């Protein structure tokens, strides 16, 4: 069984990021149908050929009376818009006509696809990307991960900051454990300043190495997990990149341990 299909999907995005993208207009058109005004979702592309491969347009016998821009009706709109006929589009400048010469049924079923659109219709511009469904699913997963990381990054930083007093206690404990060694070194003539410098450097190095090691180990675990998931279920998630934001807690602990160990030793001397 293969997970994450290669089936094609259409993404209308604010900026082009996925798949092969072409510029398009999208929005709502006001159509005059049977004496009533009807608002219908519309997607306007430069040429219907661009979407031929994805939407598989079915030509409808429209006869010679069908005038205006070529358009395709989504299968869900067939009940209200008769394929093969032409409809009047109300624009800011008056009206124009669309020839509903095609139908499509796979995607964009609730919209009409128009080959270019004249001025006066209110449509938004954006890229239309033809991507695989896997790309869409990956984007949805990335959004969920983004939601979590944005909330948890702040939380982890708060916890790290609040955890610094605990680090101070641990350093006090280390200095207390080493009190005998300090006493021996002092009797052998090592100055107090040298002892403080040595202790501060050693504990900073130790805190730095521990932080880097735990960050690297966590990153390795995530990479292995992602690779395993990709191997078992297809390439769904990209391997996460290690950003400076990820290294911030480790850096914070390392830099904070320098003054903390100095203070811990100084206060412990009493």
């Amino acid at each position, binding site marked *: 069984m293969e997970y994450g299909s290669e089936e094609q*999907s259409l993404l209308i995005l604010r900026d082009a990021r996925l798949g092969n993208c072409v510029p398009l207009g999208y929005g709502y058109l006001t159509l005059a149908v049977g004496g009533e005004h009807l608002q219908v979702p519309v997607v306007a592309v430069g040429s219907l050929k661009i979407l031929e491969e994805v939407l598989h347009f079915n030509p409808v016998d429209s006869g010679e009376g069908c005038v205006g821009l070529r358009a395709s009706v989504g299968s869900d709109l067939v009940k209200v818009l008769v394929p093969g006929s032409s409809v009047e589009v109300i624009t800011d400048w008056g009206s124009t006509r669309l020839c509903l010469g095609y139908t499509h049924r796979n995607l964009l079923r609730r*919209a009409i696809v128009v080959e270019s659109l004249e001025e006066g219709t209110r449509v938004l511009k954006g890229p239309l990307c033809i991507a695989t469904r896997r790309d869409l699913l990956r984007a949805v997963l990335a959004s969920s991960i983004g939601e*979590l990381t944005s909330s948890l990054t702040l939380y982890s930083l708060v916890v790290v900051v609040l955890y610094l007093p605990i680090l101070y206690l641990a350093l006090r404990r280390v200095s207390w454990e080493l009190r005998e060694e300090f006493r021996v070194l002092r009797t052998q003539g090592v100055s107090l300043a040298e002892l403080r410098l040595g202790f501060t450097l050693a504990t900073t190095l130790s805190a730095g190495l521990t932080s880097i090691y735990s960050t690297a180990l966590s990153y390795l675990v995530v990479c292995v997990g992602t690779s395993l998931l990709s191997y078992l279920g297809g390439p769904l998630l990209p391997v996460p990149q290690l950003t400076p934001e990820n290294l911030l807690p480790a850096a914070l602990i390392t830099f904070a341990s320098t003054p903390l160990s100095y203070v811990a030793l100084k206060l412990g001397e009493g």
Partner: protein
Amino acid sequence: MATLRVVARSLPITSHLGFLALLSVLALVALSAVGLVLALYSFYDDLLPVEGGGFIVSSYALSPLTSVVSEKRLLELLGNSTGVEFIVFSVAYVNGRAVVVRGVSPEYLAEVLGVSLSVAEHCLYVGRGLAEKLGVRRGDVLVLHSPFTGDALLALVCGIYPLPGVLNYEILADFDVARALRGVGGGYYSVAIVRGGVFEAPEHVELPLARRALLLLLERDGSTGFNVFAEVPEAYIARLGIHREAVLLLAYSAIAVVAISCPLIGYSVSLSVERCSKVLRQLGASRRSVVASLTTLVGIYVIGATALAFLALSYLRWLAGVEVLGHSISPKVSPYDATAVAVAQLVLTLLGVVRGFRELE
């Protein structure tokens, strides 16, 4: 009691506050982790509120987001349609975010939003909380991408409303829009809420509903077919896989932090009263009375710390909130959870106290 008073007075007020602050931080970390796990596991209950009694009918699915029920079969089973409310849930990818779209009846929309029935159809109504996150306004055209069908659906935002509870972080739409996104045919819904009354299920009734989460029943051209989706991410999102794993990891790390830190704090308490306990021992106080007074002191710290953390999480809910499909989830903590966390913290801290005291002796 006298020993406790001497031990407590031997420490400056800053030390008392320091230990209290340290234990409060740990209680906050532990309680928020427990609360987040509970909040996440009850996420689906919050999506389906049943006020004043009733029950929810869903298919044998991973979540309401993947459940499919047939209106015809359900009404046959119930015998009447009074008090039955249907909902169609879907997940949609909008403006770079995965959000929940809730398909409801035009009557419900008219009642909740106060709009006319004719306007309620073919429109999107966005909760204000979500609208702020998506940056949308009334009159915008939203493109909703369905991870279930792969299709893009264009719809007009007809209104932005401050809605109660979870609805404030959802898009409300009519059944047609939600079904198009979910990829199910007419007559099918995600769940049904049967209000009031007592449901007597006939024996040996097997609802021919979707047996698997990824099996969809579709009615097309008058015949019912099925479609098996082999998309793991769909199920993963629908059962909040990534969110649960992240929050569980947070809970594990909170447990590790508490397990390492509490004995360390207890040890420091013993060290800080070193001189006082030696004097007390020389004055004839028994070892047991000194340990008992230290235990009482630590107990007071832990109770105070847990109460502070509980109050902080109850009143400052943003402190440890996460987002799930556009919904802001705050930790759910009960006094029972707070007591459990306090007991664990007390035991671990006392281990450190005893160890420190033994070393001093």
